[in-house]
């Protein structure tokens, strides 16, 4: 349904249409509640390793997900629960991965934010920042190679990861190959504890696009309508053959780097600035002001969402954990070349 709206309007103007906005908002809410659930499970010791939330970044992330087609390519990062869900990930797969269920897409082999389904265009991040962008390039290159047109690939990155060599090589590669890459930079003011002043020296990250010869777009990451419009626009331009598009969203991470982090280092001035606004609240107020929905409906949604998530968690807790004895301990697919290392 969203897709039809999108397709009908490559320029993306109608991205701020009621239905699209409501759909995006619902994914934001879903992601927020899901994130909160993961945080709770973590505090209860039910999740091993880290938990990373997208609090404050849902508007941007959801906008990516709803702007993409199912046939597109998406490489989200650690704060993209909203975008993942909007792109088609199920709550169940997200929960399964965090809890390490053997039925999840990562089968307990990898976990938390390291999840995806490569063959559905949903690329599972490796931790090394910047490394996924060139992989998106590769999928886009392959589509063109196979004469499949109209694919867009979206890759997410943070302000800190713009300092990686991988970011540079991949964006330059996309520019040289004129690939339909949409690179979304979530400038949330910090890389873990490191402020942007210690990360880069340019005025605005969007300035970087010039040096690659690609188009850039800036957006207020706390404003859903703006994100839907700008991201949708960038996606449309890439799809129309405009080459790589860089979108830089300014916002603030409204949580710790991970749940272990109290983020006490975040400058209060930033928290109290417009950047510190909660995109979910703003979107809610906007929807109510527009009379596109009412508090009752929103309450119903929240109820449905909470139920869906609780059910998913309950189900996953009943699912089998991975069994090391049933596990095929081989990292290669060519079974005849597998070296079985007998334990002494």
């Amino acid at each position, binding site marked *: 349904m969203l897709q039809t709206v999108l397709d009908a309007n490559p320029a993306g103007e109608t991205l701020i249409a009621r239905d699209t906005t409501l759909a995006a908002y619902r994914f934001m809410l879903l992601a927020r509640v899901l994130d909160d659930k993961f945080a709770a499970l973590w505090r209860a010791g039910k999740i091993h390793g880290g938990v990373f939330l997208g609090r404050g970044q849902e508007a941007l992330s959801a906008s990516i997900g709803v702007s993409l087609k199912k046939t597109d390519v998406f490489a989200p990062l650690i704060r993209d629960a909203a975008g993942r869900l909007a792109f088609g990930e199920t709550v169940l797969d997200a929960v399964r991965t965090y809890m390490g269920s053997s039925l999840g897409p990562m089968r*307990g082999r*990898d976990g938390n934010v390291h999840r995806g389904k490569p063959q559905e265009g949903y690329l599972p991040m*490796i*931790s*090394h920042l910047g490394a996924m962008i060139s992989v998106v390039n590769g999928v886009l290159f392959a589509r063109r190679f196979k004469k499949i047109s109209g694919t867009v690939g979206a890759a997410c990155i943070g302000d800190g990861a713009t300092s990686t060599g991988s970011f540079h090589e991949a964006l330059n590669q996309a520019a040289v190959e004129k690939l339909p890459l949409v690179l979304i930079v979530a400038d949330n003011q910090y890389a873990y504890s490191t402020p942007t002043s210690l990360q880069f020296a340019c005025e605005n990250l969007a300035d970087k696009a010039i040096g690659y010869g690609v188009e850039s777009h800036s957006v207020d990451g706390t404003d859903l309508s703006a994100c839907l419009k700008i991201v949708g626009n960038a996606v449309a331009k890439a799809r129309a053959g405009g080459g790589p598009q860089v979108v830089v969203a300014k916002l603030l991470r409204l949580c710790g780097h991970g749940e272990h982090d109290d983020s006490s280092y975040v400058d209060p001035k930033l928290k109290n600035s417009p950047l510190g606004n909660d995109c979910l609240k703003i979107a809610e107020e906007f929807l109510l002001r527009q009379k596109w929905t009412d508090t009752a409906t929103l309450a119903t949604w929240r109820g449905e969402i909470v139920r869906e998530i609780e059910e998913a968690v309950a189900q996953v807790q009943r699912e089998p954990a991975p069994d090391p004895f049933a596990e095929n*301990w081989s*990292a290669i697919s060519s079974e005849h070349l597998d070296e079985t290392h007998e334990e*002494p």
Partner: protein
Amino acid sequence: MSLTYIDAIREAQAQALRDDPRVFIYGQDVGAFGGAFKATKNLAKEFPGRVLDSPISEDAMIGLAVGAAIEGLRPIIEMQFADFSTVGFNQIVNQAATLFWRTNVPCPIVVRLPFGGTSGGGPFHSQCIETIYAHYPGLIVLTPATVEDAYSMLLEAVALDDPVIFCEHKFLYRHLKAEKLPSEALPIGKARIAREGRDLTIVTYSAMVHEALEAATELSAEGWEIEIVDLRSVKPLDTDTVMASVSRTGKLLCVGESWPWGGVTAEIIARVASEGYGLLDAPPQRLNAKDTPVPYHPNLWTAHRPTARAVATAARKLLRT
């Protein structure tokens, strides 16, 4: 007062900063924040201008360290996780490691790698990659297994004129405790007999030393006396201490947490087999992690890495041959 392994790392860095004005620390979030594992907690305040946050640029972090070393400073570079050092790999093995041999100018840098598996760490926050560094000429690769060694070896590493890859095991960070910091220590390059025994020698390092000790306790209940050699340094390797132990026990089991192809256990066995063949009265054995990425789920993780039980099982088999 009791200190953890990570406290020891922090204290060693504080001591180095205090003792030597040429020392500085550079890494992601090591400044005001004190580092992802708090290894530099309060150091930025205590030593203004000497504990600096870097951008997320591992390649440039190492490059900067090499330049500073050329200029006579003693950089300590913290990688947030050992797994991410692969992005700075080239500067470590081709820039830092070749400088002295090419130019006769020493390259005294220490690269701290928080490494090794922890529950839920997963494929990219758990790796033991000492092997890829030890394989290249020009690097010293250290793997302390105790709070005392974490402290004294890091201090000695900073004093060395060569590039040091300092592998700190994350599993030991808060798990190990000691009463106080050591006043003296074995020098780098010397292995330690972590437990004496007559029946079998287990050669190991880092976190696996503790799995081996636990296995030895289990086996002693069965009447077996296991000798455990803690290598401490995997490059250079203290072959003499290993040989001496094997000459006493006649049996060798090498245990490592890294992947099975190549690496420390292969190197140790190759040396003993070629130089100490006569000392062995049974085939030397190896126990390593499985040849897959490190799994996320605890069930898989504990099966992937050698545990005390797995070490004990392997030792029993070897003892019965």
